[in-house]
């Protein structure tokens, strides 16, 4: 208890508070810019943290990380472009809301959900680290393969109507994912002799191209920003507290999304980019009106934004206890820990407990700080986006997409890939193939490939290597979940038909 008191007192220093607020603010702006990722923000901050005492450095990094994941929601809501892959699903509901003139409401929902998710992640980390860490290392290659398979069943709900088109999109994404050096084996494939393609298609580049460019083309061809006319007048009368009440009135959704976020976060290498989609899918599946999803449903927004902020502290579970970076930004934090002579493991919670708990609690404070920062920053970004005429907005956002995809690894090729994919994305959208399944295929394709090949390799000494995919109880659970999830549309259709039949019998 004394430790807790001390930990808290050290955080109440004004300097620490300033660090948290400025970290969240900086993170928010980075996250809101498509192409600037949380990892990059942390990497830029890294040299500064070397000169700070460990606690201050870690506090700053934690706040930036939290802010960046949350900031992704702004671009998603206002321009239909996930600022980070963690807010792909946010765009599904947030943008339609903005289109109806409910942008501020959507931002409030995202802010509150993000803060709740952020705090939930910290609580999980404080209370449940040891058992979650043990669960985390149960995921081997076979489990990764099945996780990816389970993820692919999400396509059904992401494909906006036609399952076939969704599957086409997903396959296209998986094919894109095979370009470059094979993750296992090291052969180069489908580079067409271009050395630059050895690096493959970066997920962020695909994200920018597939989500932003079609929107820009629309704005440019229609001669107006899609949102502009409706929004400003109807924005009055949304109070923060009424939105807070709304969000809190769906505890089931919040709890479910937070748990999903936590489980995905402790799976090494998954993180917010998968969590938000899974949580969204579950919110849709359990909703009483799943058919309304995609038209501006608050439940979906809550699920996406709460689950992705859980992953910030959630991915610290395997990092702090075992030294496993759960998501790319965590690798940067691991580096900082090591440089300060802090090795992940039990020591971190005992000998350096004051520092570690200080860091963890500061992430909770960062989650709370998101509310005032987000509300002010949100209004500001909102004004900029809406008060700017489209003939300024389109070139400005275009420039941002180019800078964003260039900044990722300082490569002009990435800009070209972005433009090509964006143009293809625009054309595919005309025939009803949505960008989300493509990005999902790109994310999951390589996870599936790695898990599959590694499993087979593990079985080299045995007669049927493929059996390695079916060995562990955890795999069995994942297989069952995949089958259930894949069959769900049919189950629910059958259920509805049965119900209808019973009803009509009763009526007759």
């Amino acid at each position: 208890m004394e430790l807790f008191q001390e930990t808290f007192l050290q955080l109440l220093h004004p300097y620490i508070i300033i660090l948290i607020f400025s970290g969240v603010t900086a993170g928010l702006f980075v996250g809101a810019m498509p192409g600037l990722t949380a990892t990059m923000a942390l990497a830029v901050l890294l040299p500064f943290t070397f000169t700070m005492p460990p606690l201050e450095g870690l506090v700053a990094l934690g706040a930036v990380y939290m802010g960046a994941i949350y900031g992704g929601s702004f671009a998603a809501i206002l321009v239909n472009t996930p600022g980070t892959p963690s807010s792909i699903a946010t765009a599904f509901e947030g943008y339609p809301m903005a289109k109806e003139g409910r942008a501020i409401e959507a931002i409030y929902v995202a802010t509150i959900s993000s803060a709740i998710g952020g705090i939930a992640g910290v609580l999980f980390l404080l209370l449940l680290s040891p058992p979650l860490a043990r669960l985390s290392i149960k995921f081997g290659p076979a489990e990764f393969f099945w996780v990816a398979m389970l993820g692919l069943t999400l396509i059904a709900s992401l494909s906006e109507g036609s399952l076939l088109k969704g599957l086409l999109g997903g396959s296209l994404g998986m094919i894109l994912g095979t370009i470059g050096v094979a993750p296992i084996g090291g052969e180069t494939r489908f580079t067409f002799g271009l050395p630059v393609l050895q690096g493959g298609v970066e997920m962020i580049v695909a994200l920018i191209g597939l989500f932003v460019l079609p929107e820009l083309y629309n704005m440019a061809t229609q001669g107006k920003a899609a949102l502009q006319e409706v929004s400003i007048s109807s924005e009055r009368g949304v109070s923060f507290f009424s939105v807070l009440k709304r969000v809190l009135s769906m505890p089931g959704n919040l709890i479910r999304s937070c748990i999903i976020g936590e489980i995905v976060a402790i799976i090494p290498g998954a993180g917010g980019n998968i969590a938000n989609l899974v949580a969204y899918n579950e919110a849709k599946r359990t909703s009483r009106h799943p058919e309304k999803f995609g038209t501006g449903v608050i439940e979906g927004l809550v699920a996406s934004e709460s689950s992705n902020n859980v992953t910030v502290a959630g991915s610290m579970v395997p990092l702090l206890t075992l030294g496993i970076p759960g998501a790319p930004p965590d690798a940067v934090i691991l580096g900082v820990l090591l440089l300060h002579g802090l090795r992940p493991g039990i020591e971190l919670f005992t000998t350096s407990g004051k520092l570690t708990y200080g860091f963890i609690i500061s992430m909770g404070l960062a989650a709370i700080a998101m509310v005032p920062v987000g509300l002010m920053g949100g209004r500001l970004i909102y004004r900029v986006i809406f008060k700017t005429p489209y003939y300024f907005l389109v070139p400005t956002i275009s420039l941002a997409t180019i800078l964003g995809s260039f900044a990722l690894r300082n490569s002009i090729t990435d800009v070209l890939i972005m433009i090509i994919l964006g143009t293809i994305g625009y054309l595919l959208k005309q025939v009803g193939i949505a960008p989300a399944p493509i990005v999902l295929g790109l994310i999951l394709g390589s996870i599936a490939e790695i898990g599959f090949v590694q499993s087979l390799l593990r079985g080299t000494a045995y007669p049927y290597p493929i059996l390695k995919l079916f060995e562990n109880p955890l795999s069995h659970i994942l297989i069952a979940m995949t089958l259930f999830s894949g069959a769900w549309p049919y189950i629910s259709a059958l259920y509805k038909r049965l119900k209808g039949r019973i009803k009509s019998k009763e009526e007759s």
Partner: protein
Amino acid sequence: MKKVLIIISIFALVLSFSVVAVQAEYPDKPINYIISFNPGGESDITARLQEKPLEDLLKVPVNVTHKPGGGGAVAWSDFQRTAKPDGYTLVGVNIPHIIGQPLQRKDAGYSTDGFNIIMWFHFTPNALIVNKDSQFKTLKDFIDFAKKNPQVITVGGSGTYSANHLETLRLEKAAGIKLTYIPHTGTGPLVPAVLGGHLTCLMNYSMLGVQLKDQVRVLAIASEERVPFLPDAPTFKEQGYDIVGGAFRGIAAPLGTPKAIVDKLANAFTEVNKKITEKQEPLGFVMTYATGDKAQELTAQMKKAYGDVFQDISKEKK
């Protein structure tokens, strides 16, 4: 007429500026330091540590940028094609990557000899690591079991034809055993693989041995002498296997960079290396000071050592 005069004088002005720029002593503008991997890895963290002391020594900003992809090949091929030999664009290089990729890929997009290596500044030796609960207490246990059970032992490592992979192949050859090597996409995913018991052992670097000290056992380490921060880990050499290898990290300029500039940079990096030793050694790095001819020699020597392993591989493939 007046216009022409103005144009001429502008030209003269620009020209005089550029003459001044040529004459000014190197460096007089920011240096771009390219890392060919993601932020957060060993290369990045080292560059971040070097950044500040380098700026103090050279008195110009040093910008660390990232261009990840293809195991480094994206940045390296781009560097060899486009970087100007003026000392303002430098790239982090790694052995065995820059040796293995051009040998093994049809067109890696760059060549091993296409760099002007300024310095190799440190080395992380390979280490054979098992879970603390593993049945293998010593390297001898491990090899005895492998002799009786070919291919049953699974060895996780980072990458294909990487330092980890090649060391595994060398161990197989030296001990006359057959293992199953399973490449992973980096050091990160190897941790759960060994702690969760998904693999028998890892062939990774000294760093991981330090990082997971309480949870793993290092059966052997591929350095000449024991590493200070892993005093209990015996070397392969002590145990009768002549295996020394790992990953070297260094810095390179484009071919054709004036010798004066390369020397100046080599001196600066040497100074910096001394300054950051106390930060790096506790992480399991072994500091190295190979500059000038010594740097070229080291590259050549490693190229030869790995070349033999590669020849065996291509023979096997046929």
